[in-house]
């Protein structure tokens, strides 16, 4: 049967070798991609990635990678984290690539949060940028006007986004259909207007945000290692990476649990779920809150990193960009979200010609995806509560 797949996978190599090889390849690729200067170089690398992805899919690479993640989960997760550290290390003196990498990691965290809401529970959140902004503004106010330790401010940003999201969703959560989506659209649009007319929060000019400080260590000072002064973005990349990894683990555990199953069943059939004892209201509120915490924490750190925030960074268009991460990656697919975050955040930064047209480009891309590959770039598979668990027949 299906379970007796041979231990050799892609090109006859053992899955673990394929998996570790893939991590090394992605590290080298990511490093080169982030450093690439000329547009030609970038285009070449994009073409290379597209061909590699396509060929890999055709020759069973994806299956082998799945097998590696299933059979050697711990080793693979460790390798991926070391890989991320390696990329940060290789770029340790480069300001701009590190800024892009960290932004991507924060958008990945956002994408994971939105995926819990949209991909699992079926609640589209069109106010992602607003909740991201709530996190950032929480940072701005608390870092400059209070003595709260910055690490707690991150959590505070998440809780603030979650609390406002809670107030927003509770009145509409009992309605079926797309009412909650409409409410988030309204909120996303109003949020920016509210900030622009609110002098206490800096109006259209925005606010300064103080840097992250951890136990007296200011993140805006570049760390020194063996006498080499590194970019201060290394600090943010490390913390952003830690945040993304934590968010990924939590989201994955949520998906692989009874709660994840309840969220899926609410998305697929609310009435039937209720008839089998699922508390639909609790499931929706839980998913919305869980997602907004991730979005808020990411926004909070983003504010500290870029040190200056304004309403224009948190527009409805930005929210749509965040939703497109979920759609491109594949509803409910966490690795898909990671791939899509790379595409949506890094591609326009590296290809300046695209920058102007990025909304057009991504809306086009989403339409093409929905038409020809609605399950996303990396479609979600059937839930495996415990990937290494192979029940006896």
């Amino acid at each position: 049967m299906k379970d007796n797949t041979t231990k050799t996978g892609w090109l006859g190599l053992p899955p673990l070798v394929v998996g570790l090889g893939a991590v090394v390849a992605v590290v080298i690729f990511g490093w080169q991609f982030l450093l690439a200067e000329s547009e030609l170089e970038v285009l070449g690398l994009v073409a290379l990635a597209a061909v590699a992805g396509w060929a890999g899919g055709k020759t069973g690479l994806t299956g082998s990678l799945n097998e590696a993640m299933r059979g050697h989960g711990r080793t693979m997760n460790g390798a991926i984290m070391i890989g991320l550290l390696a990329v940060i290390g290789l770029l340790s003196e480069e300001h701009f690539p590190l800024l892009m990498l960290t932004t991507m990691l924060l958008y990945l965290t956002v994408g994971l949060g939105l995926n819990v809401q949209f991909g699992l529970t079926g609640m589209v959140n069109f106010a992602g940028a607003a909740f991201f902004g709530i996190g950032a503004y929480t940072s701005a106010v608390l870092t400059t006007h209070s003595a709260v330790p910055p690490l707690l401010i991150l959590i505070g940003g998440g809780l603030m986004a979650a609390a406002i999201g809670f107030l927003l969703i509770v009145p509409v959560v009992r309605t079926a259909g797309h009412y909650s989506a409409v409410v988030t659209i309204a909120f996303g649009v109003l949020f920016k207007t509210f900030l622009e007319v609110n002098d206490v929060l800096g109006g259209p000019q925005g606010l300064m945000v103080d840097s992250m400080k951890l136990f007296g260590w200011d993140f805006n000072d570049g760390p020194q290692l063996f006498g080499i002064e590194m970019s201060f973005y290394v600090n943010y990349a490390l913390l952003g990476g830690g945040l993304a990894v934590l968010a990924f683990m939590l989201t994955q555990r949520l998906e692989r649990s009874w709660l994840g199953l309840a969220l899926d069943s609410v998305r697929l059939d609310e009435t039937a779920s209720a008839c089998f004892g699922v508390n639909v209201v609790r499931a929706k509120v839980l998913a919305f809150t869980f997602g907004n915490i991730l979005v808020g924490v990411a926004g909070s750190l983003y504010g500290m990193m870029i040190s200056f925030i304004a309403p224009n960074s948190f527009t409805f268009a930005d929210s749509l960009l965040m939703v497109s991460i979920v759609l491109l990656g594949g509803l409910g697919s966490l690795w898909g979200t990671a791939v899509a975050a790379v595409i949506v955040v890094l591609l326009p930064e590296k290809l300046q010609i695209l920058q102007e047209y990025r909304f057009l480009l991504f809306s086009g891309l989403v339409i093409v995806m929905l038409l020809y590959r609605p399950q996303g770039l990396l479609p979600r598979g059937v839930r495996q509560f415990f990937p290494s668990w192979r029940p006896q027949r």
Partner: protein
Amino acid sequence: MSDILLEFEGLAKSFGGVRALDGLDMSVKRGEIIGLIGPNGSGKTTSFNVMTGVYSPTQGRVRFDGQDITGLSPRKVYEAGIARTFQRSRLCLPLSIFDNIMIGNHARVNNGLWFNLMNRRGLRQQVEDGYAKARDLVAGFSSNLADRMFDPVGALPMIERRRIEICRALVSSPKLLLLDEPSAGMTHDETAQLMDDILAVRDRMGDLSIIIIEHEMGVIERLTDHCVVLSYGKKISEGSYAQIAADSEVQTAYLGVD
């Protein structure tokens, strides 16, 4: 413990001016299989929906297992011990067989946030127990199906989907099972197989009561101990299949008057 498991008293449900249920009295004994029949629009599915809390009744009471369950939410009704299948299959097609059955087990597992995110050991125990239970149930219908527990339900033919739906309803060990047109969309042979399955389920599960809505009179004749005939939301006849089949009022309701 009284002999009567479920009792309707003057149950009524109106949608605007339409009286879908119009003062229905009915009772179900423990371990009994009741056939609920009647022409289209006579209130059969509505009675299921009122019983399970999907709609709350306009008037009347529903008593179940000594408890008044009138107007309770679907979740509470489910926890009291009533499980159902739907007229049109309402499985979650992209999810696996195991996932679908475990939705039915929802009320019996730990749904705490901390437990689900942090206590992987405890969760694993529950998942393994759930798997054993689900697999046993499915194996009772078809051993072939029991080897495909992690296949998506969308890949299965209609009869297998019905079986999964029944397993999803049974996994919580309900006292009353409501089957809404189990033969819909199936061939004659498949219907016959499914009837065998339902009888086997009843034999395995001691005093499980079943109410079955069905248009296929062969099914009703073979399965039921007792039939209730509805027309325009009212009970027009009741008795064994032979009795109701001979009732002239029933014939009029189905066939009209000359």
